[in-house]
């Protein structure tokens, strides 16, 4: 009885220790946040850094309110966000489908192997000008940029994970007389979900790169357009504002993918 009590106390201690640690981690995270922004503000005020180039949080904040009020920020944000999400989904989906085709036909995968390597090594943003001329300076070509930048790497990573699924799972299915499609559906695909999710995480970042570059080139609307416009008129407050908004959105998207991960991978 007595021992039980002391054990309970120890457990309580342990839990409160964990909570204390968590609180300190949060504390320092907040400290870094404030030090960064107030340091930035101070340095800009005292002219330690060039306020024309580096602006200041207060100015960014003012501009933020301005742009919210005249509605331009939200419209631009809406464009960029929908392009990114579309490009991201397309890139991941097409990449996975391509990986499935390669898994289906080992012969095809042998044939295409060097081309995948070349396509992967090539900087996809260099295709931007061609895409824009081919598809027109509009949403389609920007989405295409967002997708194309992640599609090949998704194919390679997912295909590798398809190949690495323990062949004994397939053996189990084959003794049940499973077709190749059933093997894919019951074993290969679900076994690769963790890999697919982790490529999703990488693709979040990649799609933002693709879309922003696309908007640089098309230069008509979106956060990328705001950046390039701010650069051209030397309004770096605008550039920094767009950058901060992108950072927030990309983080939110990343968190959503993590949420999906917890939903999808039940067995852990």
């Amino acid at each position, binding site marked *: 009885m007595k021992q039980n009590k002391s054990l309970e106390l120890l457990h309580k201690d342990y839990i409160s220790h964990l909570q204390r640690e968590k609180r300190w981690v949060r504390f320092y995270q907040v400290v870094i946040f404030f030090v960064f922004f107030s340091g930035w503000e101070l340095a800009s005020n005292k002219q330690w850094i060039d306020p024309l180039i580096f602006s200041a949080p207060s100015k960014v904040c003012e501009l933020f309110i301005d742009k919210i009020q005249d509605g331009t920020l939200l419209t631009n944000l809406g464009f960029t966000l929908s392009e990114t999400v579309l490009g991201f989904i397309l890139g991941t989906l097409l990449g996975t489908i391509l990986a499935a085709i390669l898994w289906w036909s080992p012969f095809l995968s042998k044939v295409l192997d060097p081309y995948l390597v070349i396509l992967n090594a090539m900087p996809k943003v260099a295709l931007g000008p061609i895409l824009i001329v081919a598809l027109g300076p509009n949403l389609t070509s920007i989405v295409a940029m967002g997708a194309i930048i992640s599609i090949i790497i998704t194919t390679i990573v997912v295909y590798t994970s398809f190949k690495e699924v323990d062949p004994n799972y397939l053996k*189990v299915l084959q003794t*049940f007389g499973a077709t190749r499609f059933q093997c894919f559906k019951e074993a290969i695909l679900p076994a690769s979900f963790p890999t697919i999710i982790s490529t999703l995480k990488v693709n979040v970042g990649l799609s933002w790169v693709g879309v922003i570059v696309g908007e640089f080139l098309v230069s008509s609307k979106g956060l990328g357009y705001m950046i390039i416009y701010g650069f051209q008129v030397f309004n770096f407050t605008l550039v920094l504002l767009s950058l901060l908004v992108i950072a927030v959105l990309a983080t939110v998207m990343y968190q959503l993918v993590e949420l999906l991960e917890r939903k999808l991978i039940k067995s852990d």
Partner: protein
Amino acid sequence: MNFLKLEHIHHTYFSKASATTALSDISLEIEKGEFVSFLGPSGCGKTTLLSIIAGLIKPTEGSILLEDRTVDQTERLIGYMLQQDYLFPWKTIEENILLGLKISGLIDSTKANYAFSLLEQMGLKEYEKQYPKQLSGGMRQRVALVRTLVMEPKLLMLDEPFSALDYQTKLRLEDLVSETLKSFGKTAILVTHDIGEAIAMSDRIFLFSARPGRIHKIFTVPKELKGLTPFQARNHESYAKLFQEIWKELESLEAK
């Protein structure tokens, strides 16, 4: 009529560097309801032979007749249990045991109920909705047995199914499997490198020699052991005698 008949099976694996003969001139016959073991050192092609019998690999030469007909995988007459349970970790126990029925499109409520009753027999009823990770190694192997038996195979092949378990679990599971198979009157082939396990569980033991794999000698397990459970058999005096006999034979194989 023999239940299973292998005639002059040869099998050769080809790789860029070499051609390796895994099996050479294997001929054997197994009666219905018999439990036989393939015993031998690693590299004697036991697992290859199982895959060939199951119709997963086509032998380079030779023929396999199950009830006087060639084996067609789509008929699912053969159940296969592997070294590890290979339960699908993302499926619940229920989904795992119904997998075979689902794949073959045979699923209906009678078959599903049969699956659940088997699960109950194995003492695992309350784990239906859990995931394999939540079960111990022995429990998982029992689920794998249910998954195999649900398909009502005519021939059951066990590829070292106990080798990944701890000793105590292994002994218990040997008894359970032996009893279950006997009660269903199933014909079974057990692949193992454990002499004791082969003696305790089977009616006949095929001793294989390695490189290339061929049948070296066939032992018949004495009658007095056959009626016993594997655990009791291990304590019988004839067990020790046969063990010594097989041991010597294995030694002489290695000396060659």
